[in-house]
């Protein structure tokens, strides 16, 4: 039992994170239909952001290509369901495997660079992936995308187009990713990742194989992104090229920056906040990307630690905060 508590970062942290999952479980009985659907989407996209945070927030790897991993998961699952007639769980696993394989290959190459070069290489890989979707337009139907057949969208007999089923599955995936991220952050692995972010040369001279650790972080990150992509495609039934576009590499960055990079709850909070920020401003403008742009600049200029990063600094005055 104490092992589990330690994994969750001690009693306060365990209470906070498990409490959030419980609140979200109850919330679905309260939420109005619009918010109910919105929350299912937010939960899935938050998994994408949680994955991004493992690479960016903890390891300091600023990838501009995570759409490639999200897209690999989505297309892996969607195409399997559509053309191989693999239903729910099988399609999800195929998507997950595709994302992991893609991350492994792209990461192994991109990690030979660092900093700005790493950003550009990942951006280019993702762009190549996006164009590949077009190149195989006969199957993917490019921009237009395709609707995943409802008969393939089942999980152990439950229909995925049922809103309640969808919410539960989204929440389950979210819980797995959140607890997984918490465990990584609190483990020896997490400590090494942060060490690499803080001072790579020092970590190397403590005997850590920095390249291998970075690749590990990236694969965990890509797996979560891919799981989110696969789930998104299967739960909401649509697979399209826009999900593989640059925009979907920028969005997780924005969500993580807003919620707080390197904080386990940051990605969820950022995804939630950004969703409702765009929702609120949609009365003023339909050009929601304008809000995205303004938010990016405002965060970088005035709020680089994001909501929870700033809060954590206030909580733990001397770097020994309990908020993981």
């Amino acid at each position: 039992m104490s092992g589990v508590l330690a994994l969750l970062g001690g009693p306060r942290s365990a209470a906070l994170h498990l409490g959030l999952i419980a609140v979200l479980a109850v919330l679905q009985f309260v939420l109005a239909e619009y918010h109910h659907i919105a929350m299912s989407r937010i939960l899935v996209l938050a998994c994408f952001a949680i994955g991004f945070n493992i690479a960016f927030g903890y390891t300091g790897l600023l990838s501009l290509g995570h759409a490639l991993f999200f897209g690999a998961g989505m297309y892996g699952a969607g195409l399997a369901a559509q053309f191989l007639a693999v239903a729910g769980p099988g399609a999800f696993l195929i998507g997950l495997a595709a994302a992991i394989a893609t991350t492994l290959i792209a990461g192994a190459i991109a990690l030979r660079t660092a900093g700005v070069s790493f950003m550009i290489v990942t951006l280019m890989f993702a762009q190549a992936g996006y164009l590949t979707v077009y190149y195989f337009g006969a199957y993917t139907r490019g921009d237009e995308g395709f609707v995943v057949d409802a008969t393939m969208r089942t999980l152990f007999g439950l229909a995925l187009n049922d809103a309640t089923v969808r919410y539960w599955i989204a929440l389950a995936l979210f819980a797995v990713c959140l607890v997984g991220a918490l465990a990584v952050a609190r483990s020896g692995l997490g400590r090494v990742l942060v060490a690499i972010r803080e001072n790579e040369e020092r970590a190397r001279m403590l005997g850590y194989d920095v390249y291998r650790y970075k690749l590990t972080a990236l694969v965990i990150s890509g797996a979560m992104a891919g799981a989110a992509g696969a789930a998104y495609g299967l739960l909401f039934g649509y697979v399209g090229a826009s999900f593989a576009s640059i925009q979907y590499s920028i969005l997780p960055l924005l969500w993580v920056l807003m919620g707080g990079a390197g904080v386990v709850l940051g990605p969820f909070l950022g995804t939630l906040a950004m969703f409702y920020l765009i929702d609120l401003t949609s009365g003023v403008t339909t050009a929601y990307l304008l809000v995205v742009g303004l938010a990016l600049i405002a965060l970088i200029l005035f709020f680089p630690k994001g909501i929870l990063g700033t809060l954590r600094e206030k909580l733990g005055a001397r770097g020994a905060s309990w908020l993981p």
Partner: protein
Amino acid sequence: MDFGPFFLLAAMEGAVGAAVLAVTALGLSLVFGVMRVVNVAHGEFYMLGAVIAWWVTSLLGVHPALGFLAALIVSPLIVGAIAGAAERLVLTRIHYDPEATIVATIGMLYIIQQAVLMTYGPDARPVQPPFDFRIQLPWFGYSGYKLFVILAAALLMLAVWWGLTRTRVGLMMRATQFDRETARAFAIPVDTVYGGVFAVGAMLAALGAVLVTPIQQAHYLMGHDPLLLSFIVVIIGGLGSLRGTVLAAVIIGMSDGIISVFFSPTLAKIIATLAVAFVLVWRPQGLFGERPA
């Protein structure tokens, strides 16, 4: 058409694309070379240049040649002013941190693009070419304006080269590029140089776009491809090397034009983006750069 003339046509189209690309990429390369930052909003400055060109010509409503000339002057000036302001307001405050700058310029990208969408709208609009004569070749006629674009681009690049190597301002830029701290010690106003370089980089993008508007219509999403191609060119040419940039622009522009005619343009772009990634990984000094000792 036979293969020979067809190839000639493809090559000429490629040369026009290469000329515009060279001017645009030169701007990106200049900013990277001197400031060591990547400007992701470069493509949007290009788009802004084209949209303002349309706006100037249609607002003036004079003879196409006059209107075009006005656009050629006004558009880069406005774009330069906007870029300069953005640099003062944002980039100076994040101290040109390379990663933060990329995030900030992504923000600028969306702001400019969506602001244009909200004001200019989603339509594509043409600018009339300043003159209208065709050169008659034995196999096909060819737009004289397109040849003018090649000439103008060449002149522009000569002007940039002259400005960098023969003027005091250019000297300051090169000194800053060589070593920021030493330049500061020699009383070179490094901050002003940075602001200026960022503005000039954007102006080059705008100039490339003004040249292109009579051929290609102005549209709020048109910045995407030039950005990507400029990235490709700057990286393959060797980050920060102006000579490499021009050389790479000619090669990439020509081959992009030719491959797109004969093969799938999507495949051409996939190959080009992957090539860039591999160059950055295995030959970070670019194809034309010397490996540093």
